[in-house]
């Protein structure tokens, strides 16, 4: 009951917001379906099984700028949540909230069903939420195993436990399906996809239950992107919750269980894989109507 009232409120706000901030030509096409689908999103989060990480109606304002508004989604163990959106859709803000880099302004973030405010990335990590950023936080010239343990080295009496760290690195990478002949090779010599999965394996080893991947495939070629998708699936099969942020529906669709679409800081909806086909996904993401309009315009020119 209460929930519905809130949603109604959001819709009003939402429309007000879209009038203020959206350029007139895109306003109508972009936001009206968005606010309708929002109802579904909230319902889903209520029905869903105990999620590791959940956001309800979450929002973020920077001063007078509303970067994110009324977004709901959740991710459970062995599940991949894809967050899709074009540039400026609010993906970065969404990551920053989940990663603990920024606190949220409205709504709620729940870890294992308990409302939390992450004060820092460290706090998010302690709660089991790790973020793998695009630059992966690796040092190219350093050996794989040193990168794996960077900042969290194992040592006793001041001396590094080199043998143990090498063994663990090899074993953890093995779980991801990477069999390195030599964990002593500089990580810069690995392929982009392998480096990505080293970063994922590292996050998992250090206690992550949910890994947030920030555009892991965007800088990669087709083949390497495929490698990364394989590792994402592998991580999921190992019981990890994955939040996969991307602007490419073709990368998201094969591996995702659910799809959260963002546009201009609001949710266009949260879909189960069974509810949506890849064409619809692509269409929604690109703003199908806008694309059609563009096609007409280009055809005439």
């Amino acid at each position, binding site marked *: 009951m209460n929930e519905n009232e809130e949603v109604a409120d959001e819709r009003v706000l939402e429309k007000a917001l879209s009038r203020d901030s959206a350029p007139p030509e895109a306003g109508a096409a972009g936001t009206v379906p968005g606010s309708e689908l929002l109802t579904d999103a909230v319902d889903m989060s209520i029905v869903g099984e105990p999620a590791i990480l959940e956001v309800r109606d979450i929002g973020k304002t920077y001063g007078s700028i509303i970067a994110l508004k009324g977004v709901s989604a959740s991710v459970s163990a062995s599940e991949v949540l894809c967050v899709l959106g074009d540039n400026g859709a609010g993906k970065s803000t969404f990551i920053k909230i989940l990663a603990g880099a920024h606190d949220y302004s409205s709504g709620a973030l729940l870890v294992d069903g308990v409302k939390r405010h992450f004060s820092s990335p*460290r706090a998010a990590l302690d709660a089991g939420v790790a973020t793998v950023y695009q630059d992966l936080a690796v*040092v*190219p010239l350093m050996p794989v195993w040193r990168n794996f343990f*960077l900042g*969290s080295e194992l040592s006793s009496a*001041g001396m590094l436990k080199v043998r143990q760290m090498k063994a663990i690195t090899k074993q953890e990478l093995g779980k991801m399906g990477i069999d390195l002949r030599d964990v002593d090779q500089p990580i810069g010599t*690995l392929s982009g996809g392998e480096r990505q999965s080293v970063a994922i394996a590292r996050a998992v080893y250090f206690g992550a239950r949910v890994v947030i991947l920030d555009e892991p495939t965007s800088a990669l070629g087709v083949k390497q992107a495929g490698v990364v998708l394989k590792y994402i699936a592998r991580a999921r099969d190992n019981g990890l919750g994955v939040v996969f942020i991307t602007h490419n529906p073709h990368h998201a669709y094969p591996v995702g269980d659910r799809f959260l679409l963002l546009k201009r800081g609001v949710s266009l909806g949260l879909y189960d894989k069974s509810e949506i086909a890849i064409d619809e996904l692509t269409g929604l993401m690109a703003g199908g109507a806008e694309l059609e309009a563009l096609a007409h315009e280009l055809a005439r020119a």
Partner: protein
Amino acid sequence: MTTSTLPGGAAPSLDERLKRANPLVKALRRPEVGAGVAAILIFIFFSVVTDSFLTPAGVSTWLYSASLYGIMAVAVALLMIGGEFDLSAGAMTGTTGLMVGVLTTWYGLSVWVALIIALAFALGIGFFNGIIVMKTGLPSFIVTLGTFFILQGINLAVTKLITGQVAIQGMTNVPGYSGVKAIFGESIGFGSSGFHLETAVIWWVVITIIATVVLMRTRAGNWIFAVGGQLQSARQTGVPVNRTKIGLFMTTAGCGWLVGMLSLFDVGTVQATTGIGDEFIYIICAVVGGCLLTGGFGSAAGAAIGALIYGMTLQGIVFAQWDNNWLKAFLGAMLLLAVLINLYVRRQAGGRE
């Protein structure tokens, strides 16, 4: 240079386009290997062309010569691996020597107290260099160039102001001098062979070993490679970036103090111009030893070998009775060669960035 493009059959999971590095590149990837080869060649060369190079007395001479540069080269190498420079390192050896000299001969301070004051001063300057670099984000090249000139000016001006001269005299009469000399300036003879081991050489070896262990086997070592290799990544993974870099500046300054003491207590005097110009030699030794100018790669042993090359060449040219200006030309050529090898190694190792 040709590289094998045959797919490594034993590593099926590797991308087939990822070529295996050939053995030569793999060997050169170890930062000290190239310098080691060069050191052996130079050793053989001077052993053949001069009579005194291989005599016990000759060996003592070039070992001692290498040791003073070696200690600093090792410290500078750590700093360079951490991604920074310290141009004030040379002047620091003069400053600390002069401080102890002035405090003891002019103000009658106990030599031990003077030693500690000079050490505290050196560490303070190191901390200052580090904190300025880290807080402002300015290149350490510029910041330490400033400190270098400040120290250089102070060394001359203050020494002249207080003593009226540009060198310290009468150190040997200072109470406790011989006690301190036993630690810093002793020369241990080995019978009638003519070989004598300076304590500086022992210090050099010990410091090289400590630096190597720290670099390869401690968390601090991992952090040094990380802050020099990719600062942002180091931050993101929780490496105490500021502490690591400031510690490195303090280590370099502390070693500057050590070398200042070693030369002061060896000869019992110090010139106000001591150490000026040596800062580049330290950097050259470190680079010849395989340190990358851009940070994140290198070794302490390599820098020690770089200094050994310098010491051998410096004395070898004297033994051969050549014009010692050849030293500079040789040094320049070694530096260029080392940088070219480094560049090649970096392209092999981190070229995917």
